[in-house]
């Protein structure tokens, strides 16, 4: 299929934002039926390229060709009518509309009245074509992220998509859901859709892509066909080197730390209708991983411990004292910190400065007797963390929203480390950040454990959980499936438990 004439060509495109050269002389060709992976660290220019392809930004220089004809794409509607569509890691469905309505949301020429029967039949046909089983009459609200993505893909198909851009579609998916998504991609490939796949997880990229292109600092570094199976490991190393521009040794580094005293004992913890029977202990210096598929309710356990959505069953003992945690404010006072998975929605106020964000939970420490903020001390703290966590920014007065994802993540970590917690709950701490920032976060976590913090690590990145955790607790649909020690925890065993299969060993360990 790759021999077919290109459907979309990007020729010598450059784009500059103020002081940043986001893209420089980038050329890329998409063929029908080809999965073209685009990889690079955050800030490499991937997002800018997508925005240029979908008409959000015009290029400064360079040309876009569709079917060999130069085109101006002025906005996303124009992109859509040319058959170019994009889906993002956070699907954009309307929760109150049903699946079929979401699929046909962009169709404006369907007449004054809705022919519901026809709408549902067409929606079902599209989903069947993708081999996705969904009730088209179901509201989108209850759908899993993966199902929402399927709806978005169906939406693109309904618009006769010829070039589908997928921006980190797997970032929020569990392994099982990734497999499903890949089956959908396969069927799109067979139908001759050109796919631009932006990914962070190497295994996935090398599994799905026909061609792999590396961007770094706005420049195209390399573009190559995927190697044969035998050559694959070497190609992978090569690609990673090209991405970061330097050798990457160990991605994961949880150093062995002697177990400290017991910090937290959670017994029969539960919240009606959400999760139940969660039962574990964490010692100081220990990392307890929380593995499971999306929807396993791991985040809800974190939120209950942090007092955002308090639990109503079971007991919590913190350093030997029975506690009832009913508000985040109280949790902070008890020395519990929760680093959310939703950086932009719940973690940081993006229009405000780095320093402001870092001192937010601990602002009281920075107030004079009159209640005024001591800016200089605030700045000092921010500078300290900027150095300690290597936050790459020209100034701590910069708006957090202007930082890359990895650096935002570090600001969020700084914010909570500054609260000097005893228990640190990390919810998907490396989601959507680049390889280098990821490795840095792993080092930070390892260091924190070595300093005696107890860490609860919720992560859907299975290799990450396994490498970073001393023990792994597996959840499925609000229930604890088992706790595995480091030596017991293999990908297969954790996955089996997460998917609800019985495993004799996990049963034995559970109590």
């Amino acid at each position, binding site marked *: 299929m790759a021999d077919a004439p290109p459907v979309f060509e990007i020729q010598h495109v*450059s784009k*500059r934002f*103020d*002081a*940043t*050269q986001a893209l*420089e002389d980038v050329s890329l060709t998409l063929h029908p039926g080809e999965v073209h992976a685009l990889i690079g660290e955050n800030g490499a220019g991937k997002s800018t390229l997508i925005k240029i392809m979908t008409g959000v930004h*015009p290029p*400064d*220089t360079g040309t876009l060709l569709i079917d060999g004809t130069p085109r101006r794409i002025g906005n996303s509607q124009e992109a859509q009518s040319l058959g170019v569509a994009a889906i993002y890691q956070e699907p954009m469905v309307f929760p109150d509309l049903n699946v079929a309505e979401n699929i046909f949301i962009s169709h404006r020429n369907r007449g004054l009245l809705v022919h519901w029967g026809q709408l549902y039949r067409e929606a079902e046909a599209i989903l069947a074509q993708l081999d996705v089983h969904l009730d088209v009459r179901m509201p989108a609200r209850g759908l899993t992220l993966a199902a929402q993505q399927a709806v978005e893909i169906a939406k693109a198909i309904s618009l006769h998509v010829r070039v589908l851009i997928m921006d980190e579609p797997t970032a929020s998916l569990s392994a099982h859901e990734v497999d499903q998504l890949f089956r959908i991609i396969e069927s799109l490939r067979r139908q001759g859709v050109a796919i631009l796949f932006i990914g962070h997880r190497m295994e996935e990229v090398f599994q799905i892509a026909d061609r792999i292109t590396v961007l770094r600092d*706005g420049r195209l570094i390399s573009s190559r066909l995927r190697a044969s199976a035998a050559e694959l490991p070497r190609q992978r190393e090569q690609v990673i080197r090209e991405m970061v521009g330097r050798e990457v040794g160990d991605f994961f580094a949880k150093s062995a730390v002697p177990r400290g005293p017991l910090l937290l004992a959670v017994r029969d913890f539960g919240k009606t209708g959400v999760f139940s029977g969660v039962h574990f202990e964490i010692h100081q210096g220990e990392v307890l991983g929380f593995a499971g598929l999306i929807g396993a309710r791991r985040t809800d356990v974190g939120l209950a411990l*942090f007092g*955002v959505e308090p639990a109503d069953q079971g007991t919590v003992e913190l350093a030997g004292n029975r506690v009832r945690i009913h*508000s*985040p*404010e109280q*949790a*902070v*006072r008890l020395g519990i910190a*929760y680093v*959310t998975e939703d950086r932009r*929605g*719940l*973690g*940081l*106020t*993006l*229009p*405000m400065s780095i320093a*402001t964000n870092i001192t*937010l*939970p601990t*602002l*009281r420490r*920075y*107030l004079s007797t*009159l*209640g*005024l*903020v001591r800016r200089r001390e605030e700045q000092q703290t921010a500078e300290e963390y900027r150095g300690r966590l290597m936050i790459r920014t020209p100034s701590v007065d910069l708006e957090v929203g202007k930082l890359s994802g990895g650096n935002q993540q570090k600001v969020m970590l700084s*914010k909570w480390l500054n*609260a000097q917690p005893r228990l640190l709950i990390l919810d998907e701490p490396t989601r959507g950040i680049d390889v280098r920032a990821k490795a840095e976060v792993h080092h930070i976590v390892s260091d924190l454990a070595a300093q005696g913090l107890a860490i609860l690590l919720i992560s859907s990145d299975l290799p990450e959980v396994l490498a970073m955790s001393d023990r792994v607790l597996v959840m499925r649909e609000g229930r604890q499936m088992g706790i595995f020690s480091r030596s017991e925890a293999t990908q297969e065993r954790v996955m089996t438990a997460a998917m609800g299969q019985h495993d004799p060993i996990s049963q034995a360990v559970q109590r």
Partner: protein
Amino acid sequence: MQLRWKFVQRWEGLLALLLAVIVLYNAVSTPGYLTVNNWVNLFQLSIEKIIVALIMTFIIINAEIDLSVASVMGFSACMAGFLYAGGMPMEGALGVALLAGVAAGLFNSFWIGVVGLPSLVVTLSGLIGYRGLAYVLLEDRSIGSFPDWFNRLGQQPWLGPFPFAMLVFFVLLVFAIIILQYSGFGRYVFVIGNNQAVARYSGVRVQRTKMILFVVSSTLAALAGLLYAARLGAVRGDMANGFELDIITMVLLGGVSIFGGTGSLWGVLLSVLIILNLRNGMGLANFSGHVQTGVIGALLILSVLVPNLAATVRARWSQRRLRSRPAAEPGR
């Protein structure tokens, strides 16, 4: 060049420019315009609204709204009049009226902070309810003949050329600026206005902050109502009717985002000065009050439009600059 544009691109800069133009025009066309007395007069005619605009700035930055302020003004003034007419000494009546304002604030903040209802709805019922209470107290009576000291408070200069209400305003302004721009509480107000969930997930006591704001809002509104009564020398059930919209206009025109999170008291101060001088100038030029209101409405739309427009224009320019640059120039 660069600097001057930055200044104009900020809404406050535009406001200052506009104010300068209006003041200049008025000064040239009207002799005696630039006298202290004229300006004190200008201020005095809207001073109660301006006082309430201070706390409204906090509330709107916090991404909330208080529609009940004007009704609380009327309610507290009527309460004072009612008690005074019933034989209570004026001092006592004022004290109770102020407490009635506090109570109204507690009532609002209970529904907003504890129950979690939207402030728009709660204070809309407040707007209706407190006005209703004012009418219940006085029906269609008008109560006047307050003690002399009370009338003097509202009508005569107190310190130099300044009447009492203006002094109250200056003191409150200083406090408001310090609290909003420099204190921890002000920081919370901005953060909550920006993203309430982030504040909550950071252990900030969101509901408590809101409740404080709404109690202070009603208390200041009650105070403003009493000052208004002193200036008029009489109270009636319909006094201060509709003031809430003028107050909100002052705040929004000052560049405070209706969505919360951004704004400054300097901007609000500038917008107050613009509204006052514009009305004054247009009044002197024989435009009717309705035309004046229309012009202020148009300004309000501009206040939303212009910053967006400025951003678009800026983006265009930077692009054109880029295009005109030689392509070979290295990046960064």
